[in-house]
């Protein structure tokens, strides 16, 4: 079992939920991303999602779009990100998921990517624009390297699709709680509860909920019905607002602590 599966098992034994934090790699710099990953680990975050910036992020709202643009201006590439993760792995065992779009991976080369990602210590990959109909060309290689293929389920997925997606997913299911892009709408808790019930009947994989969860209170509320909660845009906004300040890493640490504390309830 990989780091992701093991983390969910440990949490389950303790009756806890996973806190998953998203960061756009290279925003404000790769050095800061490195420091922030380690600080998230210290803050008790369970999984980090490292956003691979892309020029045309069609599933992202304005906050993550802007972060991607900043990271790309700084010259951040997939190769740099994999090298960064290799450095993180020397000092941390926090499960790491790469989150992004297909083209940068495709251009890097699917097979080469999977090998390098495994060597670097990547545990899972979530490619927003690779639905199950198109994912074989990449997952043939990531499966061979033991990298989890995290898959999205959305409010528009019917039972048939939930089954099709979860049969082929590994690691965990990422449930997109709103019909929309990242960081724009707030999920309706009643809908999340209903949809989680539906998904849980079909799959035994852990299910994490993300898109639009920005406060500790919301995270805590959603966590009641899920195995994990993803917070992305709210952290990215905090990073943007404090990117030039000396206490950036401390601010991210405190916000993660605050989220994690709510989570335990």
């Amino acid at each position, binding site marked *: 079992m990989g780091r992701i599966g093991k983390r969910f098992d440990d949490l389950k034994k303790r009756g806890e939920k996973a806190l998953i934090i998203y960061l756009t790699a290279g925003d404000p710099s790769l050095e800061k991303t490195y420091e922030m990953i380690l600080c998230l680990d210290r803050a008790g975050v369970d999984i980090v999602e490292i956003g691979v910036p*892309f*020029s*045309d*992020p*069609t*599933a*992202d*709202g*304005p906050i993550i*779009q802007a972060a991607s*643009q900043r990271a*790309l201006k700084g010259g951040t*590439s*997939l*190769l740099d990100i994999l090298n960064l993760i290799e450095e993180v792995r020397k000092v941390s065992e926090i499960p790491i998921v790469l989150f992004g*779009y*297909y*083209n*940068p*991976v*495709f*251009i*890097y080369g699917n097979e080469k990517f999977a090998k390098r990602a495994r060597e670097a210590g990547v545990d899972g990959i979530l490619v*927003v*624009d*690779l*639905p199950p*109909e*198109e994912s074989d060309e990449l997952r043939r290689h990531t499966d061979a390297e033991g990298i989890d293929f995290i*898959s*999205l*389920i*959305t*409010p*528009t*997925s*019917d039972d048939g*699709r939930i089954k099709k*997606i979860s049969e082929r997913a590994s690691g965990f299911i990422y449930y*997109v709680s709103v*019909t*929309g*892009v990242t960081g*724009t*709408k707030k999920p309706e808790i009643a809908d999340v509860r209903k949809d989680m019930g539906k998904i849980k009947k079909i799959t035994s994989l852990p299910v994490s909920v993300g898109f639009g969860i920005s406060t500790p209170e919301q995270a805590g509320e959603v966590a009641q019905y899920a195995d994990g909660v993803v917070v992305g845009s709210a952290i990215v906004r905090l990073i943007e607002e404090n990117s030039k300040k000396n206490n950036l890493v401390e601010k991210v640490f405190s916000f993660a602590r605050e989220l994690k504390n709510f989570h335990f309830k």
Partner: protein
Amino acid sequence: MQQALPDKNGHFGIFGGRYASETLIPALIDLENAYNEAKYDQAFKDELSFYLHEYSGRETPLYFAKRFTEELGGAKIYLKREDLNHTGAHKINNTLGQALLARRMGKERIMAETGAGQHGVATATVAALFGMECQIFMGEEDIRRQSQNVFRMKILGADVVPVISGTGTLKDAMNEAMRYWVSRVRDTFYVIGSTAGPHPYPMMVRDFQCVIGEETKRQIMEKEGRLPDVLIACVGGGSNSMGLFYPFKDDPGVEMIGVEAAGKGIETGMHAASISAGNIGVLHGNKTYILQDAVGQVKDAFSIAAGLDYPGVGPEHSHFHETGRAEYVAIDDEEAVNALIFLTECEGIIPAMESAHAIAYAMKLAPTLARDKIIVVNLSGRGDKDMGIISERMGFSL
């Protein structure tokens, strides 16, 4: 005869597909099913044909450009006059089809992206015609460059949404349109304007544009008693060219040439020639040739013709290129402007800047061919919208 493409997952060989986020997949499947039903439904076909005929003014002439041919001194050149359609370009063939499909699916809101504004105007037009709510996503930079089209869309009742992300051009408008569609997917029909996007769009847009090639085939048989030797059309996303080419794809004697925009010159990097100078990647829901850097970030396209200013190309064109069924060449801004002026002087027809790329290539090719050869050029749109750009280039102030 080859097997009909795309396959059931929307692939044209290694190209095409449905590289979209899960939120959209169920909507794309619904759309595909609705379209597959509609296309065999006589009532739907009759309705579309009624509007193409009575509203858009089809069929469009296949005009023998006698003086243009004589000036060039080679092959006979026919112009397929898509510029004579209502709204001034071929775009309406597709927006009528998609709007009727939207209505059939019970969707009362339609939305679209637009670059120069031609597809936006064609979409806003059918929205007005069918009394539908309409939103058009357009890059901020394009809004500035194409204020007249923006105004046309507004008086047609559309809500023009400025897109400020990225460089504020067509690519960004398409990104924003996809984001918006994700949020309103249950009640909104997304009218894509080119043979691009995720399956079933490249297939559906092609089918709606095939009326161009079907008419051409019939018309040339009437006029010449034989098929043409060469078809020439400009390629941005590729809808007018695919509409002309596709009905001839199984006629091996008919050569097809797609003309991309070389902008300021391929070597300058400021162009929109995805097939001629790009490589394979995944953008806006399909795998195709795109303009990108070494690490897979999509580059901005550049062309004097806003309608060709897109860093990708329809996946079926990539397939035609890969299999050698069509040839793709590139014409730069200057050649296209000269062609616009030359055709205007010879024939009294002002082509759109986009179509002028196809005219420019015909001007290169025709003199190299014998006088009994036949070329058909798709005159996809009229040039009125480009008078600002042309006058500026010629030193006139309007």
